[in-house]
């Protein structure tokens, strides 16, 4: 009986440890996502009236599965090169996939004759300049980039 009780207690302790472990993992994951979000800023042309956008919708725009914003304006997303740190963060944060996987997606679009990849601009400054001068444009830049004159979108789940 005593053995059975100690086994029960052991199970309770194990369950508590498992719960704590899962909670820690969830918090760590959430913090990681938060950190990633803080490391990249989503910028749009100042005429864009949005203040936030869902990851799903932003992903569709950057994969050209949505060609316009909700108000009908043509969306003009711009990418950064595959080896850019901001690209890797954006890809994980918004698409939930690696840059390589997204590159493979674009190869499929090209060779099925459906579409071509986004314009790639070499760095934050060029992205900011492009977004500033093109209505409907959207890009991403590192957290430290100066975004005066542009609208920065919050990401919603």
């Amino acid at each position, binding site marked *: 009986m005593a053995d059975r009780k100690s086994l029960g207690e052991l199970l309770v302790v194990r369950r508590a440890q498992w719960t704590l472990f899962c909670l820690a993992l969830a918090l760590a994951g959430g913090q990681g996502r938060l950190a990633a979000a803080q490391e990249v800023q989503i910028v749009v042309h100042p005429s864009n009236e949005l203040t936030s956008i869902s990851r*799903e*919708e932003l992903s*569709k725009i950057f994969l050209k*599965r*949505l*060609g*316009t914003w*909700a108000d*009908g304006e*043509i969306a003009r997303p711009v990418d950064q090169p595959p080896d850019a740190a901001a690209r890797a963060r954006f890809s994980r944060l918004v*698409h*939930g*996939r*690696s840059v*390589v*996987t997204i*590159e*493979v997606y674009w*190869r*499929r679009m*090209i*060779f*099925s*004759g*459906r579409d*071509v990849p986004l*314009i*790639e601009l070499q760095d934050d400054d060029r992205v900011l300049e492009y977004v500033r001068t093109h209505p409907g444009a959207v890009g991403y830049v590192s957290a430290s980039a100066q975004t005066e004159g542009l609208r920065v979108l919050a990401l919603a789940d």
Partner: protein
Amino acid sequence: MRKGSTVPSLARCRNFTSALCALLWVSGPLQLSAEDLPDKLRIFGHLTQAYAESSLGSILGATKSGTTELNSLAVQFRWSISDRDAAVIQLAHENRSNDIFSPIGHDVEVDWAFYERRIGRTTALKVGRLNVPLGIYNEVLDVGTLLPFFHAPISFYSGVLNTAETVDGISISHIFAARSDWNLEAHAYYGGWDTAQQRVSSDAEFGLVNLDARAEDGVGVQLWLNTPTHGVRLGGGYLTWRLDGPNTPPNTRDDWESYHVSLDVDTGKWLARAEWRDWSFEQDLGAFLGLSESILARTGRTGRYCQLGAWFTPRIGLFGQFEDISLRDDPGLQPQLRDFHQDAALSANYRFRPDLVAKVEVHRSETRFPLADPSRPQTFGGPEVGVDWLIASLSVSF
């Protein structure tokens, strides 16, 4: 893209291939960005070169002595006229050794030449020679960097025969509920295409000869239901056409139909795909079998495959595949032909970059393909034989 009677100068095409191979190899990680080219013109291409060898006879291009006559290349020019208009031309060359499903055609040909107009947010109209959305792989049949195996499954895509890779016609595509987690991609197309029709011949190397034919009045639809889970979609489609060729009875035209369903799971890491396709057609089996009498029959076949695998690291992927072709019982063919071809395969992929992929794959086939056993009479419908074969290939795209 390929026609039965086209056999131009091999030397010329080999030179062309070699030159482009060298160009692509030297180009390495060539990335043509908007800054390298005029804004509106973009150029893309892909190339695959393979070596294939079999344990017994010839099967799907693999030969007992080994062959490097398995390659394909394409160069695509896309001119974006405006935000909504584009013109696309793709030139392609393909060599499939002695694969009976892909009649020899070494020429450089116009693979696609179409004008595209985007209408509204999610609708596109294409006119010209355009690729056909049919199943998972039909639009990228020869793009080695996108395929887990050298061939797209023959049980479903059928080489060039009895299907449509491109049509000379028109297509329209639309995404319903594009902003929703669940959305539906719909494609419809109409047109005709050059193809071939096979006839049994004991004198022919393949046991079959390929004769020029023309498909007309092709009408097809393809639907994809995209799910909220990234990379998971369900598909289905239908294609019908009339075939005008040497086996077609006088004053009639073969009516063909094919249905298919698809499951596509591609998360970027995990891959699970399965497709099933059924064909039925009216044919003069007497003409097919080389008999003087006419035997009109509605007949058909079923093809299916499944693929499972994963990219275990960003560079290394392992994939397995099983496929099966079964012929429908009909009055002109022996019942034992029903189980015509089964193949189990494993493929190891090494991705140097997204645009440079090497593959080694091994296959075990139980098949009735005529050339699989060179010791038997080369006639259609011989006994089933077991053949082991392998393909090593290198694919690059830019």
